[in-house]
């Protein structure tokens, strides 16, 4: 977007920048079409003005008015329950640790449930996070039923009157029917204690078009209420969340910006779009 008048190259560069950020063909086409229309209507003359309009369109696509607060406050005597789900290696366990850190820094009490009873040393990993941030971790033996570990964790959270219970679950690819059924069961069993307040889908920012399918299937199975976009500290732009927001209306609530306990931030649409277009500071 270097030249100042608008020509075919300008449009191609705009399209390329969106596709190169993993926004995907469908969303890119729709956004560029709207942009062309607005450019015509407004009589926009310079590439710089088109670029500003593009940023506006992208921010609008992310529905900046949406409520992105994390429902983490207890209702009466019962702790808020947050379930963390997603495909393998996306950053679920790390995100649990980081969320616990933020809440504890706010003066809340947190308990974490290690409902990943499958992956090697997954419970140990969560326990390490627990001791790092000062949260009790409830775990079962390796190979235990994840639903019963999750149930026990929430039960313990109610007994000890913590403010928030975070349930870490095993990574699973959304095309694995058996594993998705298992996840649905984890949630249903937890709900015997009362409703789950948040179900967070952890999406890796490097993910391409499969991210939309992840969001679709996980939402179908456990009704995702928000996305955590991890690994945004790398070179990946995470543009798939634009498609996820447009298609499924699921907002990104938090972003992961590193491997440390403090590397978690609220999602800011304007900042995200600036980084996506490479126009940020």
């Amino acid at each position, binding site marked *: 977007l270097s030249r100042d008048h608008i020509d075919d190259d300008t449009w191609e560069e705009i399209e*390329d920048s969106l596709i190169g950020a993993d926004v995907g*063909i469908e969303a890119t086409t729709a956004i560029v079409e709207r942009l062309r229309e607005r450019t015509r209507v407004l009589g926009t003359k310079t590439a710089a003005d088109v670029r500003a309009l593009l940023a506006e369109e992208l921010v609008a696509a992310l529905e900046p008015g949406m409520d992105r607060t994390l429902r983490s406050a207890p209702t009466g005597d019962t702790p808020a329950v947050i379930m963390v789900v997603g495909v393998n*290696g996306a950053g679920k*366990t790390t995100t649990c640790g980081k969320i616990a850190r933020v809440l504890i820094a706010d003066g809340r009490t947190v308990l974490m449930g290690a409902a990943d009873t499958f992956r090697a040393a997954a419970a*140990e990993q969560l326990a390490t*996070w627990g001791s790092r941030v000062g949260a009790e971790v409830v775990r079962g033996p390796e190979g235990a039923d994840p639903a019963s570990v999750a149930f026990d964790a929430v039960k313990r959270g109610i007994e000890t009157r913590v403010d928030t219970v975070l349930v870490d679950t095993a990574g699973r690819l959304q095309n694995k029917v058996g594993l998705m059924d298992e996840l649905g069961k984890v949630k249903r069993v937890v709900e015997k204690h009362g409703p789950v307040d948040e179900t967070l889908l952890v999406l890796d920012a490097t*993910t*391409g*078009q*499969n991210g939309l399918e992840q969001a679709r299937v996980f939402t179908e199975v456990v009704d995702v209420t928000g996305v955590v976009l991890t690994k945004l500290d790398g070179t990946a732009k995470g543009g798939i969340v634009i498609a996820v927001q447009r298609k499924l209306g699921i907002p990104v609530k938090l972003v992961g910006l590193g491997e440390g306990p403090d590397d978690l931030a609220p999602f800011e649409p304007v900042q995200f779009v600036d980084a996506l277009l490479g126009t940020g500071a």
Partner: protein
Amino acid sequence: MSDRLSGIFGKLRGKGKLTDADIDATAREIRLALLEADVALPVVKAFIHTLKERARGAAVSEALNPAQQVIKIVHEELIGVLGGEGRRLQFAKNPPTVIMLAGLQGAGKTTLAGKLARWLKAQGHQPLLVAADLQRPNAVNQLQVLGQRAGVEVYAPSGGNGEGDPIQVARDSIEHAKRQARDIVIVDTAGRLGIDEEMMAQAAGIRDAVDPDEVIFVIDAMVGQDAVRTAEAFRDGVGITGVVLSKLDGDARGGAALSVRHVTGQPILFASTGEKLEDFDVFHPDRMASRILGM
């Protein structure tokens, strides 16, 4: 076959000759199909360029009908880029053979270390696993569990979780392997971002300490457009001799395979296809080509 491709091939079918207009229209659809499969944009552009050249040359010379010609060319080109016949692991003349794993966070390195150990052991080798990820919480425990499952010794002098020097561990592991008469050393390393200079320097340090016969870049099949930048960073930062594509048991089309091949020129050696140690296969370029095209 994906709707998009069956659509264009349907249109081409029945026509007598491949015209420039046919080629352009087809190329446009192939471009979209590749982008939907997450092949990175610069790689798509290069691929389409080659495809057009070949299709123009082929139009006059071959006896196939136009649709068959285009399908054949696209498929052949894809298999060609993905590596043709592929290759086996390179073994050292003087054992131990050293295999170092590298890649982004969560790509599947530690799991692959376990899989390789199991696979090589089944072939009569005596592998040693080396816990040189001292960063990620409980990476060492994870490798120990996998080593136990594979029935392979794990060299883990340092407990990790932020303590210890991975370069030292890697260096010492070679002596240990020699003493224990292990003929293969598999070094698991921490996940790192291509732009993390300090961590990339550490990876280069590990490489220099063990002088690997293979540096395997592990990449998640779900990765999108960033595959090019990341592969470039690892190519330049540590040097890559081979690639493993992980999580191929998912339903991502896996265009990253094409991107990484394009950037590194190095062979894709294996496909990682599940969470269990036996979910592991050699890489099949022909199957991958069909998968990327949605055929």
